[in-house]
Structure formats: structure tokens, C-alpha cells
């Protein structure tokens, strides 16, 4: 059995070295340590992954107990790592895509003052994320979960001199905290019910236990789902992700597209045993996914900031994953995560190049004409956008999204409504992908193009571009080609998808999905192709403009939360500026003072007055004696 701990330990070492001595190293050394540690992890992952596939271990997982973390009565939590097919896939994505993004960052962040801090944070992130997916118990998973939250905060606010970036970092931190708190409560309940937090233990015990007492069988998955919603930026906690684009582009690519935001997907897939016990939690997951993918897709349609388009698109794609999880298409969700990691990382990295080349211009309508100026970038971006739009048969995105669309109707929990929303989402996705591509790369250049690029920049881009085209071929739809390497491997961990009795013919749905995609691409072309595009001749009315700004602000969720939560809270704090409880204490003080005044008025120095008081006292006592 390989030394599993090496995979997270290498980035951790990189982090520690850079954190403690980063300022003293030269840039080359920093790049070597920062990128090298993740690349080494990726190499080990590849080697062991091949070994895993060739000779699967007994029980479908390698486990490794490092040491005991803490022990309280019956709760024993160890630093235990576990690598099964699901973890392996995530570890592969994290280390491999992570390594590519690190290579890219070596060149991308070259001019930055805090080179070492950047790589230290990135390494810490990779380490935390690896812990999250390799954890054998939920406490260790939670450690990784909070670790990636911390790194996300650190990296969103990487350029901390700008207050807006700090605001975005705080926002991301606070909003994910809501989900994390819910998840922590879920863990407590889980421990209370089952008495264990080990993942295999939970999955083994849950069916019998909740068959006996179903008191928390719905609440626990819902709480875990809330954690996933916060981390994965799903409705209603999705508002942090568009603002999180304040961080550097590699950060957006690694954390806010490929890995961290899919932690929620991982958590639900990991806890599938609990979700399967509660049909309601499954339905909630599916509905949240469906609504999110539609809402975020609509917002992506009207954004003008290139990174915000991609951010909303990320929310929308994760919505697809949640939808797939909710309908019970476990492996389809993970497959979409797999392909999405490639093409979305690619799109973010390419967007980073565009932004750098155009001197930090984010507005896509001030770009244009990059097709001739940067052809290599154009082709990589094209493959990414095509994959995002799910261009049939030649892109990876098609295979994964088509599977989800099909299962949205035909899987056990699926129905036509979910399918219709997902189809609309597919149409919208194709539409905004085309819009993005056309506006940025066609037409005439509106901003002078600077020189930016290099081998280190393009190597990851090309690799990812290739992967975002071909990675889908490992899993074909059943009716076209019986090649299902991906789901076969995941069968060891995740239950197979159960189909409905009378599901519609798969060919028909595939055809509709492909048509929707093509139609979306045509719509985008029709509206946004330079010169002939309708959008340039279209006179928008005020009502349309209002609707557009409504979508632009992400369906006004920020404003909604501001009026619902922030303003009442501020109002309360304002009226409570002089602490209400202080009034009790100052009232006591004031009462004492006034009593003091009252009694000291009776101390008037008159002897006869005192004697009269004594007399009244005696009278009182004697009267008491008489009466009682």
C-alpha cells in the first residue's frame, strides 16, 4: 500500500517552507517549491492511481491511520486517510489541475510583490482540499473544509490594499460560514444518533439505525446539504461567488471553479447513504440545483465582467451537479465535476491571460478582435467554451451534461419539470458561451493588446484544452457506445443510478439536448455576432433595461439579503447603541442614588426626629406582638 500521507504532506511542506522563509528566497526558488510540491503530489497521484486501477485493493479503498487526533469517551478521531475511487478522482483533479494552475501561476504572478505568500496560500489550499477528500472521518473532513474556507478567504483578499477585495473576502467567509455552521450541527446530530463520525461507519450503520428511529433521518442530510450549499455557492447562499472573483485568476480557476466549490458535491456524494434514506432531502437537493442553474445562467447572460460571467456559469454548472445528485445520478454528477474542472479551469486561466494582455480590462465589451492577435489563446478558449456549451459529440461537456439531462427525467427521482429546467439551462449556457466568445474574440480591438504569454502560460492552457475535449470519451452514453469506464470505477463507491420504469427513449432526449445547444449557440450568434448582431441595433426600452439590471445584479439577491437581514440587524444595533441591558444596571444605580437621597434626607440631625423614629419602630413591633 502506498504512503497516502505523502500526497497532502508535500503541499503542506511547501506551505510551511514558504510561510516561514518565503521572503528570503528568490522568485525561482519560491516557484520551484510552490509549484514543485504540487507537481510531485500530482505525479504520486498518477502513479498510485494507475496502481489502484490495475490492482484494486480489497474493499475498494486504501486506508492509512497516521495518528490519533483526540479521544473523548466513545469518540475517537484519528488522522486517518482513505483513498477509494471517489477520493482518487477528486485527488487526481486537485493535484493534476492544481499542478497545471501552479505552473501557470509561476508565470502569471511573476510580477507580484507577494510571490511567496501567494504560493504558500495556494499550497495550503491544496493540502486542505486533499485532506477534505481523503479524510476517513467527518471531523478530519471538516478540518479540510474549514481549511479551504480559510485559504479561499486569504486568496480572495490577496490584493488586500483594495477595500473592495477585502469586502469580497469577508463576504465569502461570512456566507460560507452559515453553511459551515449548519454542517457542524449536522455532524453533532450524526454523532448523537450513530455514535461515530467515521465515514464507512456512518454509511454502514445509517440504514439500520434510521430504520428504527427516523427522527433525524431528514434533518441530518438537510443540514449537510446546507453545508454543501454554502461551500458550493448554491441558492440561497450563492451571492459570494461572483464577488470572490476579486482574487487573482489562478485562484478563481483552482478554488472557485475546479475544486473548492465542488466540495459540496463531494460531501453529498460521500454521504450518499444518508441522502438515499431521505427522499425529501434528495428532492430538495435536486430542486435547489435546478433553480440555481437557471438563475445563475440568466445572470451570466447579461454580465459584462468576463470573470463574473464565468463565476455565474460556475454556479450554474454546480447547479447541474446538485441536480444530478438530487435525482440519484451519482456518477453523472461526479462525471460533470470531472469535465467541468478541466474546462472551467481552462476558461478562467484564459480569461486571466486576456485580462493581463488588455491591461486589467474586465469588461468584455471593451475587448474584441483577439482572434487574430492571440490565436493560440483563441483556440484554447474556444475548446473551453465549446465544452461549456456542450457542443455535441466532440466536447467533454456534452457527455457529462447530456447524462445529467437524461437522468433528470429518467432517473428514480427525476421528472419532466427538472428536465425542462435543465434543458433551458443548457440553452442559456450555450447562448452565453457563444456571447462570451464572440464579444471577446471577434470584431475589432477596442483596447490595445499588450504582450503577455509564454511557455509556462500556454502549456497548462493547451493541456486543459485537450482534456476538456477528450476527457469525455471515457464515458459514453449507453445507446451510442458501450464504454463506461468512469461509472464502472465509481460503482465501487457510489450506488448505481436507478432508472424509472417508463423512461423516454434516450435518443430522443439526446437529440433535444443537442438541438437546444445548437439553438443556444445560434441565438448567441444571432444577437452578438459583430456588425450583424441584433444586439447592436436593438433599442432597449426602460423595462428591458430594468430587467437586465435585475439579472446583472444576480436577481438582486444581495439587495434582498441587505433588506432582509443586514438592515434589520443594523436597525437593531442602532436602537441598541446604548445597550438595553446597560439600562437595567444604570437603573439600579439610579435607584440606589435616589434611595440614598431619600434616606439621607431623614438624617437631618434632629435628635427628636430620631427618637420619634425609634418610637415608631417600637410601636410597630408592639403592634405586631398585639396582632399576632
Amino acid at each position, binding site marked *: 500500500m502506498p504512503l497516502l500521507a505523502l500526497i497532502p504532506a508535500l503541499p503542506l511542506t511547501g506551505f510551511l517552507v514558504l510561510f516561514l522563509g518565503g521572503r528570503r528566497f528568490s522568485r525561482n526558488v519560491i516557484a520551484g517549491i510552490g509549484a514543485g510540491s504540487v507537481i510531485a503530489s500530482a505525479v504520486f497521484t498518477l502513479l498510485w492511481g494507475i496502481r489502484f486501477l490495475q490492482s484494486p485493493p480489497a474493499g475498494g479503498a486504501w486506508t492509512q491511520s497516521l495518528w490519533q487526533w483526540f479521544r473523548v469517551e466513545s469518540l475517537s478521531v484519528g488522522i486517518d486517510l482513505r483513498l477509494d475511487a471517489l477520493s482518487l478522482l477528486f485527488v487526481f483533479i486537485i493535484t493534476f489541475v492544481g499542478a497545471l494552475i501552479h505552473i501557470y501561476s509561476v508565470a502569471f504572478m511573476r510580477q507580484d510583490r507577494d510571490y511567496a505568500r501567494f504560493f504558500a496560500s495556494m499550497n495550503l489550499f491544496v493540502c486542505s482540499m486533499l485532506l477534505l477528500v481523503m479524510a476517513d472521518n467527518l471531523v478530519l473532513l471538516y478540518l479540510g473544509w474549514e481549511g479551504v474556507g480559510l485559504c479561499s478567504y486569504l486568496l480572495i483578499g490577496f490584493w488586500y490594499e483594495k477595500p473592495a477585495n477585502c469586502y469580497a473576502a469577508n463576504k465569502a467567509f461570512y456566507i460560507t460560514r452559515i453553511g459551515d455552521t449548519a454542517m457542524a450541527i449536522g455532524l453533532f446530530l450524526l454523532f448523537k444518533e450513530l455514535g461515530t463520525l467515521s465515514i464507512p461507519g456512518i454509511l454502514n450503520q445509517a440504514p439500520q439505525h434510521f430504520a428504527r428511529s427516523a427522527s433525524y433521518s431528514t434533518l441530518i442530510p438537510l443540514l449537510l446539504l446546507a453545508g454543501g450549499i454554502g461551500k458550493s455557492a448554491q441558492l440561497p447562499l450563492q451571492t459570494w461567488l461572483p464577488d470572490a472573483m476579486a482574487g487573482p485568476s489562478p485562484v478563481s480557476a483552482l478554488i472557485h471553479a475546479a475544486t473548492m466549490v465542488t466540495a459540496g458535491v463531494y460531501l453529498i456524494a460521500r454521504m450518499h447513504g444518508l441522502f438515499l434514506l431521505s427522499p425529501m432531502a434528495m428532492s430538495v437537493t435536486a430542486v435547489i440545483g435546478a433553480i440555481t442553474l437557471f438563475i445563475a445562467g440568466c445572470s451570466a447572460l447579461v454580465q459584462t465582467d468576463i470573470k463574473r460571467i464565468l463565476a455565474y456559469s460556475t454556479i450554474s454548472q454546480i447547479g447541474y451537479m446538485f441536480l444530478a445528485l438530487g435525482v440519484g445520478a451519482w456518477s453523472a454528477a461526479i462525471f460533470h465535476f470531472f469535465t467541468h474542472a478541466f474546462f472551467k479551469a481552462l476558461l478562467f486561466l484564459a480569461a486571466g491571460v486576456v485580462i493581463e494582455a488588455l491591461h486589467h480590462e474586465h469588461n468584455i465589451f471593451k475587448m474584441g478582435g483577439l482572434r487574430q492577435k492571440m490565436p493560440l489563446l483563441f483556440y484554447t478558449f474556444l475548446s473551453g467554451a465549446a465544452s461549456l456549451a456542450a457542443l455535441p459529440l466532440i466536447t467533454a461537456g456534452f457527455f457529462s451534461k447530456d447524462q445529467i439531462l437524461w437522468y433528470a427525467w429518467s432517473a428514480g427521482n427525476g421528472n419532466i419539470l427538472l428536465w425542462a429546467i435543465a434543458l433551458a439551462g443548457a440553452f442559456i449556457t450555450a447562448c452565453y458561451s457563444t456571447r462570451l466568445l464572440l464579444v471577446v474574440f471577434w470584431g475589432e480591438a477596442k483596447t490595445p493588446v499588450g504582450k503577455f504569454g509564454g511557455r509556462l502560460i500556454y502549456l497548462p492552457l493547451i493541456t486543459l484544452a485537450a482534456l476538456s475535449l477528450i476527457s469525455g470519451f471515457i464515458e459514453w452514453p449507453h445507446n451510442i457506445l458501450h464504454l463506461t469506464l468512469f461509472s464502472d470505477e465509481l460503482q465501487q463507491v457510489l450506488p448505481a443510478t436507478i432508472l424509472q420504469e417508463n423512461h423516454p427513449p434516450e435518443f430522443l432526449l439526446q437529440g433535444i439536448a443537442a438541438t437546444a445547444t445548437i439553438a443556444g449557440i445560434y441565438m448567441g450568434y444571432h444577437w452578438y455576432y459583430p456588425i450583424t448582431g441584433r444586439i447592436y441595433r436593438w433599442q432597449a426600452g426602460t423595462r428591458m433595461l430594468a430587467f437586465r439590471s435585475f439579472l446583472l445584479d444576480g436577481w438582486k439577491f444581495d439587495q434582498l439579503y441587505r433588506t432582509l437581514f443586514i438592515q434589520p440587524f443594523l436597525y437593531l444595533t442602532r436602537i441598541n447603541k446604548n445597550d438595553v441591558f446597560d439600562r437595567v444596571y444604570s437603573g439600579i444605580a439610579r435607584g440606589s442614588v435616589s434611595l440614598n437621597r431619600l434616606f439621607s434626607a431623614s438624617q437631618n440631625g434632629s435628635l*427628636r426626629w430620631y427618637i*420619634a423614629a425609634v418610637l415608631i419602630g417600637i410601636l410597630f413591633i408592639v403592634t405586631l406582638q398585639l396582632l399576632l
Partner: protein
Amino acid sequence: MSALFYISSLIAILATIMVITRYNPIHALLYLVVSLMAAAMIFVTLGAPFVAALEVIIYAGAIMVLFIFFVMMLNLGNTTTLQEKLWLQPKIWIGPSILSLILLGELIVLLLQEKPTPLPVTVVDARKVALSLYGEYIIIVELAGFLLMAGIVGAAHIGKHRKKHLHRFLQEEENSHGHPPASQADNAKQIVDHKEPKSIV
């Protein structure tokens, strides 16, 4: 015996009423002497001749005479009487009197709740008192000795005729609105005068 008791009680009460209503201190004192004599009579009827003798000798004889000397020493004459007349208005005494009379009523009610036991008058003479006093109550005698000693020393000390001697707080008050001693003010002025040229130089 009981007739004697009632008569002397009546005299004592009437004389005491006179004491507290007189304007002239000397008159009040004389009435008090009468009251004390009546009390001595009560003691005799209660079978305590020794105490009766002491009442006459010490209370009526010594203490009251001390009062009389005192009043004479302060020379409280007609002015005091007039002042007392002004002070003793009905609105001043009616409230406390009612309160006190309520107390008296309550005391009497309490006393009458007891079943009346006839008082057997047997004389407890000086011999018995002396035996008890110097036997089991010897410590009381000693304490009384201490008390009298302290009283004498205290009286001698307090009564020493000195110049006006105020508490330091009162003294400051007096100085602030009265005329401060000239010498001190001059001294202060000198100090200020002395200092000013120095500070300028």
C-alpha cells in the same frame, strides 16, 4: 397598703405630668423631686424600703440637686421661660403625644392580657439585698464602679472650661465666612510677595 400605693402612684403621675409641661426648669425640677418621692413611696408599698431610701437620697437628693445647681449655674431665668412658652406649641407636642399614648395603650393592653396575680407584700430588706449584691452580683457592683469612675473622669474632662474649641471642619467654615486671623493672612501675603519677584527674575 394598696390605698397608699394608689395615692402615691397618682401623685407620681400627676407630678410627672407637671414636670413635662413646665416652662421654668426649676419648677420642673421641683415637680420631679415630688415625683421621685412618690416613687419612693411606691417602693415602700412594694416592700423595698432600702431602695426607697436610696431613691430619696441619691435621686431626689443628689441627682436633682445637681440639676438645680446646674440650672443656677447657667442662669436660666425668665428668658428661658418665655422661650419655652414659644417652643411648647400644641402643633409641636400633639403628634408625638398621640404616638406615645398609642404606645401606652398598647402596653396596657399587653399587660392586662396577663392574668392578674396579687402581689404578696413581703419586705425584702437591705440585708438580703446586700447579701445578693455582694454575693452573686459582685461583678455588677464592680462594673457599676467602673461606670461611675468613667462618668466622673468624663464629666471632669468635658466640663473643663476652655476657650472656644471647635472641630477642625467647623473651624474652617468659621474662617471662610468669618474674619480670618490677620497674622495668617499677612503671612500668606508675605509669601506671595516674596515669591513673585523671584519668579519674574
